[in-house]
């Protein structure tokens, strides 16, 4: 029971709402949030892909240094960084241990180290870019690079609907608990309690499926009255919507500076 209560505490609706708003709009005053989304996409499309194809450890370390600087300026919370690095180190470590078991030796260490650095560069790049954009910027940027309007609609819809959905799921779950009978014995390793809660969690989706179906219909009808389907399929509408996106001087400066840094790395360590 205690276990279930802990879980329900976490699932408090207010908590979810606060967390969401915090991750979405918590950092709008940083440098990266002022850049155009396209700049960030271009930047990310380089640093998210090329490290895979580089095997020079100095260049990779140089890139890692750059990423660390950008994440510092993006004010990423240290907790996220810690989780990320622990995850990467854990993955590398488990690979190393099993590789040793299969007859590897300490020569296995170096390639694994390079792999970890690569993964680190890539994930830091994505964290810098996507954590510093707020949802509006992200969906506008995606729309601009040709992702269909449904996607940016869905992002907005997600932010609007999630609290309602969580609340509803919570209601259904609680009413299942009210009507049902919790197991009297915990069972070995709480197995009965766990399976009871898991079963409830799955069964609660049955009513939710039906009510969400209704809600989806209402949503689409509302979209139709607003003419959103027209907007998704006609470029003029998109153009009007995205007029605020402009590449400014600092966008170009940022791109040029990153480019120069990469060129310098290649020239120096080659």
């Amino acid at each position, binding site marked *: 029971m205690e276990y279930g209560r802990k*879980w329900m505490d*976490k699932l408090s609706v207010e908590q*979810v709402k606060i967390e969401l708003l915090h*991750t*979405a709009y918590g950092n709008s005053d940083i440098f990266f949030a002022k850049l155009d989304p396209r700049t960030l996409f271009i930047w990310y*499309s*380089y640093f998210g*892909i*090329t490290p*895979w*194809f580089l*095997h020079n450890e100095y260049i990779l370390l140089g890139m890692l240094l750059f990423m660390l600087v950008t994440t510092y300026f993006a004010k990423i919370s240290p907790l*996220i960084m810690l989780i990320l690095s622990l995850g990467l180190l854990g993955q590398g470590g488990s*690979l190393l241990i099993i590789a040793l*078991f*299969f007859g590897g030796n300490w020569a296995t260490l170096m*390639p*694994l180290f*390079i*792999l970890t650095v*690569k*993964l680190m560069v*890539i994930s830091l790049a*994505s964290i810098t870019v*996507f954590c510093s954009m707020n949802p509006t910027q*992200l969906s506008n940027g995606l729309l601009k*690079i*040709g*992702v*269909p309007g*449904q996607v940016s609609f*869905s*992002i907005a*819809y*997600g*932010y609007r609907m*999630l609290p309602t959905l*969580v609340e509803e*799921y919570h209601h259904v779950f609680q009413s299942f608990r009210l009507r049902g009978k919790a197991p009297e014995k915990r069972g070995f390793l709480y197995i009965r309690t766990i399976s009871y809660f*898991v079963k409830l*969690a*799955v069964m609660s989706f*049955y009513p*939710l*499926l039906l009510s*969400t*179906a*209704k809600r*989806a*219909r209402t*949503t*689409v009808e509302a*979209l139709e009255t607003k003419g959103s*389907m027209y907007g998704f*399929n006609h470029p003029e509408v998109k153009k009007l919507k995205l007029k605020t996106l402009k590449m400014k001087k600092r966008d170009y400066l940022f791109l040029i500076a990153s480019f120069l840094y*990469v*060129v310098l790395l*290649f*020239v120096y360590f*080659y």
Partner: protein
Amino acid sequence: MSNLENRFILTQSQKMMVFILSMSLYGLSNMITELVPEFYIGPIELSVEYFAFIPLTLCILFHPLYAAIGASLGEVIFGEIMLGQFGGFGELEKFIAFSLAMYVAGTLVRDPKNKLQVGIAAMVGIIIHQAISAIVDILKVWVGVEELEAVPGLAESIVAIEGFYFLNDVLFSGILFALLPTVYLVPRLYGKIEPLLGMKPRTRDDRYSLKEIVGPRLIVGGILLAAFAFLFEFLSETEFNWEWEADFVEMFGDWFVFISIGVAAFIAIITLVVLSNRKKNNTQKDEKVS
């Protein structure tokens, strides 16, 4: 109704309804699975990987393409963007693998009331998804580590780890959170949920084929990307070698560096173009069908 063999055609808004339904429900379930803690019995991780029964049920009951794409997008938006964990290109691989697996599972079922068919489809969907993600994970190490075979023990260990996770996910998550709930839900929802979206239930004559999603463009794009990946692997093994690296720069001059940077940038652009083309294709298809 002149031609019964005709595919069951949905209007644009009905597709949007299926899409939104699948997106919001699977997104919600993703949020919940993020909160459920994991259990370990020795090295075996008993975690709720995902509530795969939701997209499976919806793919079986409705048009599989829209339900599958909606579910994958729901995962990306609710499970990643809203929690501040969006992974960029890594999400693309998940998106494609998951949509494909769910779509195939949906096409397998001809009669939603047949529990055997539903069960087989659910398991096939899970197996396809887990197999693709295991292969991608192995490939990541293979691309990321130069001369993988030369490093003792690494190739075996990655295959062993991925194989183990594959079995673990299929047997634990697959049976508990895909097979059983899907078999329970699909016959109960069949005929009940469709009228809520203003459409008639799927009948035995409606069939969907893989051709819709695996178009020639996707195949060509995949081959091209794979070819580029191999090219890079090749380049990195022949020319970037330490011993005659100095010669190489002398031979071709400094501009070689810029070429390699250029090629890398080119790859990035190609990927972006392919990506946006794919998306555009999908929307164009929507327009055509409606």
